[in-house]
């Protein structure tokens, strides 16, 4: 008997895994994701900014000397009337600094041919601000003012740690920002998988019902077995895809990232992972992100949870989709009933940002326990490092719910597959579920 389910599972599985579209999407999606992530960097590399040449007419006599050329701006101190400087085609614009600019910083004007860029304006403004502030401080005649200023200047960076519940020891954890992005990414993956693979179950059942092959299959196996075989076969396809992506991800994290990063960053990452932060020379945010991404234990834990929630969520939703698919004759008729399955998935995904912003709020905890939204929302919370019992309870609730849902769906399916013609309502489905 169980070998019959096995036959159905393997038929459903191989039919899909050997499809060209499956192979292509499985390989293409990671490439597209990588391309999307790399896009800003690539744009930066190919972005060539022009150099702007500004004529500076300094009536204060102090400011111009301290202006420094940048990569994109060149200052030419000139001594000519404003109008002739404006007319001079060698210059892209004219910066006019008023006589009492130190006292009255609004007495500064920038004339441009065409629109000036936001970057240029900002860069000039901040230079002028520093120069004027320095000049004002000098006016107080404090000794060693330069030294005092450089000593006072503070660059604050926070390394966040999580106190592990079980050991009481400190562990380096990723920053909230990294957690937020990781959580949202997982919620998105689950959202996509639940919808795509859930609908795959539905359309496949509708197709079988439509071309009547179903009648032959159920003359050999119980309808419930056919339904379970189909759900499990398609579920295995989803797992295969996730597994391939997982392998690609771990390869990328294990080999590609270390190979691309400079040695001093890696040294800092190693120091961070060892719990020493004192000697760091690199940007803390980046070190933390890399540290989180190359922390295999952390990633493996998250990945395991994701697979657990994917399995539970898929079984829960695909059984709803199976019941709907069995009841209708064509996809058009399914659209209305489908909202029963689609709405909670969408609600779960929409709530992901709210839950990510406040991962320990009551709303977040409740939504990550309700089986219809827990697959997505618990995955949003897990990267923040919540107590282990929470995801475990959530998984248990989810798995009990899917068993119940499969049972109800099987009852609807059994009746639904032989109903042709009439477009059923949600009420009909409930009546079929109660049918002896």
């Amino acid at each position: 008997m169980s070998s019959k389910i096995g036959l159905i599972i393997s038929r459903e599985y191989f039919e899909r895994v050997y499809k060209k579209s499956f192979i292509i999407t499985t390989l293409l999606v990671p490439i597209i994701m990588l391309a999307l992530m790399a896009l800003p960097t690539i744009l930066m590399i190919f972005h060539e900014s022009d150099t702007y040449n500004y004529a500076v007419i300094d009536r204060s006599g102090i400011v111009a000397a301290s202006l420094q050329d940048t990569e994109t701006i060149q200052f030419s101190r000139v001594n000519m009337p404003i109008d002739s400087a404006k007319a001079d085609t060698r210059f892209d614009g004219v910066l006019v600094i008023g006589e009492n600019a130190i006292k009255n910083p609004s007495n500064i004007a920038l004339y441009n041919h065409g629109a000036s860029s936001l970057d240029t304006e900002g860069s000039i403004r901040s230079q002028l601000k520093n120069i004027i502030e320095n000049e004002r401080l000098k006016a107080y005649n404090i000794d060693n003012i330069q030294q005092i200023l450089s000593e006072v200047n503070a660059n604050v960076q926070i390394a966040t740690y999580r106190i592990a519940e079980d050991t009481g020891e400190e562990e380096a954890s990723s920053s909230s920002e990294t957690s937020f992005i990781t959580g949202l990414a997982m919620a998105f993956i689950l959202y996509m998988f639940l919808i795509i693979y859930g609908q795959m179950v539905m359309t496949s059942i509708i197709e079988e019902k439509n071309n009547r092959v179903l009648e032959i299959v159920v003359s050999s196996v119980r309808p419930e077995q056919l339904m379970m075989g189909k759900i499990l076969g398609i579920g295995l396809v989803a797992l295969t895809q996730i597994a391939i992506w997982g392998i690609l991800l771990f390869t990328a994290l294990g080999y590609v990232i270390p190979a691309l990063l400079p040695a001093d960053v890696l040294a800092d990452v190693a120091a961070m992972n060892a719990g020493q932060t004192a000697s760091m020379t690199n940007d803390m945010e980046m070190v933390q992100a890399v540290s989180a991404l190359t922390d295999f234990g952390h990633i493996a834990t998250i990945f395991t949870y994701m697979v657990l929630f994917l399995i539970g969520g898929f079984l829960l939703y695909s059984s709803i989709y199976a019941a709907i698919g069995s009841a209708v004759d064509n996809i058009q008729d399914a659209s209305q009933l489908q909202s029963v399955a689609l709405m909670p998935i969408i609600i779960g995904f929409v709530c992901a940002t709210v839950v990510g912003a406040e991962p320990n709020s009551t709303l977040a905890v409740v939504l990550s326990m309700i089986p219809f939204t827990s697959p997505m929302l618990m995955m949003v919370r897990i990267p923040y490092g919540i107590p282990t019992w929470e995801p475990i309870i959530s998984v248990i609730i989810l798995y009990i719910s899917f068993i119940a849902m499969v049972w109800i769906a099987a009852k609807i399916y059994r009746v639904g597959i032989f109903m042709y013609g009439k477009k059923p309502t949600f009420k009909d489905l409930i009546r079929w579920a109660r049918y002896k």
Partner: protein
Amino acid sequence: MELLKVEHVSKEYTGHKALNDVSITVNQGRVYGLLGPNGAGKTTLIRIINHITAPDSGTVTFDGHTLCQDDVAQIGYLPEERGLYKKMKVGEQALFFARLKGLSKSDAELRLKEWFDRLEISSWWDKKVEELSKGMAQKVQFIITVLHNPKLLIFDEPFSGFDPINANILKNEILRLKDNGATVIFSTHNMSSVESLCDDITLINKSQNILTGSVAEIRSRLGANRYRITFAGEADNFLSKLDGNIMEQNIETVSQTEKSLTIKVTPLVSRRDMVKLAAETLDLTTFAPALPSMDEIFISTVEQFNNSQK
């Protein structure tokens, strides 16, 4: 010996009574015709025999025990609405269904090869089903139905979609399976194939069994006191003499001069009386007892039942 016994089976589908106290008995090695108008409940009964749906009440006994899931390995079912997985290759698909019925892979391959050779379709093995014509797919489906050598074969409209040559091949295969000991249930609207194939029939109408028996017995029972007479001229005189005893009459013109009268009379009129009366009052050409065709039995029995319900 009884292979299948369906007793007092009723089945209701959300307010609609699909079967109402139906009983049939199918004997080993016979071809059993399941007849009835569309929507009479035949498919529901077949599904119950196939253990696809369970009856609300009543029992199904198969091969001496209550029908159970394991028995489906002993049943082959060809549904009226044919369907195969379109994207799957013919051979692969036939293997899949054979193994679902419990055959081992090697055993199934061996039998499939034999069947494909006999029906001369070996070259289709690696073709996808969607590349086959309707008739070709039907052949494949027929093989899938009979491959596991079931004790009971159920064919729902097996000849629809076949050209006469292939229909004849199929008919001979069915008879060959019967000779090898298989029992066949045969659901159809094609009454001429019932006459040539079926040993017993049941006629289901409006969810009820309204006629059961062997084809020969039913025909001779319903054909009693029924005659076909050809004559020239008019039959008014003949008919008026029989007034009150006519149960059924139908006059057709055979040629310019000749007419044919099919007539059924009450048992009060003996054959001797009929012959005498016909000889006296008609310009007689032929006089013969007329066994009704299955077509006529079907129509008259269903109409009679429907009229009695009004």
